[in-house]
């Protein structure tokens, strides 16, 4: 990383953090701190929603997924536009009319205190862990690239986020996310252009190569419960997870509750529904282009430099050059015979890598042999020009900071509103509440940093976060659905159903191979289906 890159990276971060802190100086009331002044326009809300979901994991793992598996991961996002429409039509107007500060506050109005605090507790647990993961992801990657220990990187990013999130609250998060999202989109668009220009073949030929090797297979209509991403799991499980995430996760709810009006909130959410799939597709496509680049240029056996399998290196190099020659000949002839040979060779490459992985795992059973997360950054460092490397590093750090900032902001708000002010000190005055909000936000920042330090040895990172989310999201969504649509069900019935559903999802996770997107459907269905008969045994109080 050159001096120019450092300047670009430091300059970008300094401008964003400085702008966010300056724009939000002098916040005096806890209301303004938690709600962000209620003057956000749709583009701020939309970009803030996108930046909250886009963590560093998105920019590191997603190109890696494109490199390994092609465009199929995009199916996970098919549910987002549907969820945006459903939420705009149902839940968002209710939040605005009831003037709640958190999603869980609504549940006390509808059910009772224990249901509110159970869901708030599930949120704190899940988002607290998630915030740790969103710090850890860039920390390990930067440790490989820059040689920094992940400990130092996690603490540095975490402390930077704590500074502006604690000082400016919701408004600081929204304002910085607007800029961060702009940097992320611009950085990735430049990456696509730059990689396309680096390819030794034309873009059409590059797409042909990607297509013949199965990387452009974006939609899989097969009905397989154990396949993670299919059209069906994306449309059903993806919709459920998006409904739960955008509708009940305080880190998202707080973004659109800061809107100037219901209209601005709806427009911001629909904006997210319109641009989400193209954005994810662009990031996956970066991975596909990197894959094509390495069909014609030597690639390491493992992109994570900590993985070594010397016994397989010679064979890897031989297979690579054979495949590269075969591809060139296929591009000029397009003969079916060459294509068959090509696919056979591709299969042999996969087998070789699997054998190398098995060898490494045999020597060190705890080694993480999936190196997909390292593909994109390794490419950036080795092939991008000066300046652009710094910008791409800024993209990754902006993403880490934006996701963590929303999480800390929401965790602090929920701790104050749903627990401290509700159960311990309802009469707390403004100044003390403001101080406590800042204290809770900072406290959760420290918890996230601590968790990041322990979060090593996880599978592909983005999937770890999504799996973690899916374990908790189904039951959470179930509670809200019962709240909106089954008005005869009372607090105790839904409370018991939620506990049972949560246990059921954990059992399914531990004891079956069902794709994780289905956990959302299962958890939600158990809550809805169980709370109905339970409501006959424990009816809702008539007075409500």
């Amino acid at each position: 990383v050159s001096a120019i890159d450092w300047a670009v990276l430091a300059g970008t971060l300094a401008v964003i953090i400085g702008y966010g802190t300056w724009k939000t100086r002098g916040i005096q009331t806890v209301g303004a701190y938690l709600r962000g002044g209620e003057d956000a326009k749709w583009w701020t809300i939309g970009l803030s929603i996108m930046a909250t979901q886009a963590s560093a994991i998105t920019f590191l793992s997603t190109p890696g997924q494109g490199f390994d598996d092609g465009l199929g991961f995009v199916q996970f996002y098919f549910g987002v536009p549907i969820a945006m429409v459903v939420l705009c039509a149902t839940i968002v107007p209710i939040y605005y009319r009831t003037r709640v500060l958190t999603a869980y506050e609504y549940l006390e109005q509808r059910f009772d205190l224990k249901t509110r605090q159970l869901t708030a507790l599930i949120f704190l647990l899940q988002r607290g862990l998630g915030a740790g993961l969103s710090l850890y992801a860039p920390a390990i990657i930067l440790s490989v690239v820059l040689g920094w220990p992940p400990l130092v990187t996690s603490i540095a990013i975490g402390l930077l986020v704590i500074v502006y999130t604690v000082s400016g609250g919701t408004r600081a998060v929204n304002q910085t996310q607007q800029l961060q999202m702009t940097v992320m989109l611009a950085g990735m668009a430049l990456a696509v252009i730059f990689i396309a220009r680096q390819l030794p073949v034309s873009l059409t030929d590059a797409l042909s190569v990607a297509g013949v090797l199965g990387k452009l297979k974006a939609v899989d209509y097969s009905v397989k419960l154990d396949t993670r991403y299919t059209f069906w799991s994306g449309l059903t499980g993806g919709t459920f997870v998006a409904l739960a995430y955008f509708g009940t996760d305080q880190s998202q709810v707080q973004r659109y509750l800061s809107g100037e009006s219901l209209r601005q909130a709806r427009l911001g959410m629909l904006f997210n529904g319109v641009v989400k799939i193209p954005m994810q597709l662009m990031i996956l496509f970066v991975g596909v282009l990197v894959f094509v680049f390495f069909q014609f240029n030597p690639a390491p056996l493992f992109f994570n430099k900590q993985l070594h399998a010397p016994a397989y290196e010679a064979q890897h190099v031989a297979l690579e050059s054979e495949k590269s020659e075969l591809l060139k000949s296929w591009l000029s002839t397009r003969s079916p015979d060459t294509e068959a040979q090509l696919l056979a060779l591709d299969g042999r490459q996969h087998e070789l890598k699997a054998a190398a992985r098995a060898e490494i795992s045999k020597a060190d059973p705890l080694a993480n042999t999936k190196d997909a997360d390292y593909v994109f950054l390794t490419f950036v460092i080795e092939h991008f020009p000066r300046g652009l490397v710094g910008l791409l590093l800024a993209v990754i750090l902006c993403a880490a900071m934006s996701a963590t900032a929303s999480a800390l902001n929401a965790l602090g708000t929920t701790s104050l509103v749903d627990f401290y002010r509700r159960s311990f000190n309802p009469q707390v005055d403004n100044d003390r509440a403001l101080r406590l909000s800042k204290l809770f936000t900072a406290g959760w920042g420290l918890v996230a940093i601590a968790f990041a330090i322990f979060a090593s040895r996880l599978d592909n990172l983005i999937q770890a976060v999504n799996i973690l989310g899916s374990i908790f999201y189904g039951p959470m969504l179930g509670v809200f659905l019962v709240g909106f649509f089954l008005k005869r069900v009372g607090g105790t019935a839904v409370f018991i159903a939620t506990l049972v559903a949560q246990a059921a999802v954990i059992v399914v996770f531990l004891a079956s191979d069902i794709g994780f997107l289905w956990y959302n459907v299962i958890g939600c269905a158990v809550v809805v289906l169980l709370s109905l008969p339970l409501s006959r045994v424990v009816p809702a109080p008539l007075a409500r």
Partner: protein
Amino acid sequence: MDDKGTPPDVDDARSWRGAYVAVLVWLAVQIAALTLLSWIRL
């Protein structure tokens, strides 16, 4: 519906229907284009 189970302001909801349909049509167009990309050989 609100917290007591009554539908939200009908007029307001109705004025947003066009926007909702447009977002869903855009989703269908994207899925169709991606399906085509999965099937055709460039």
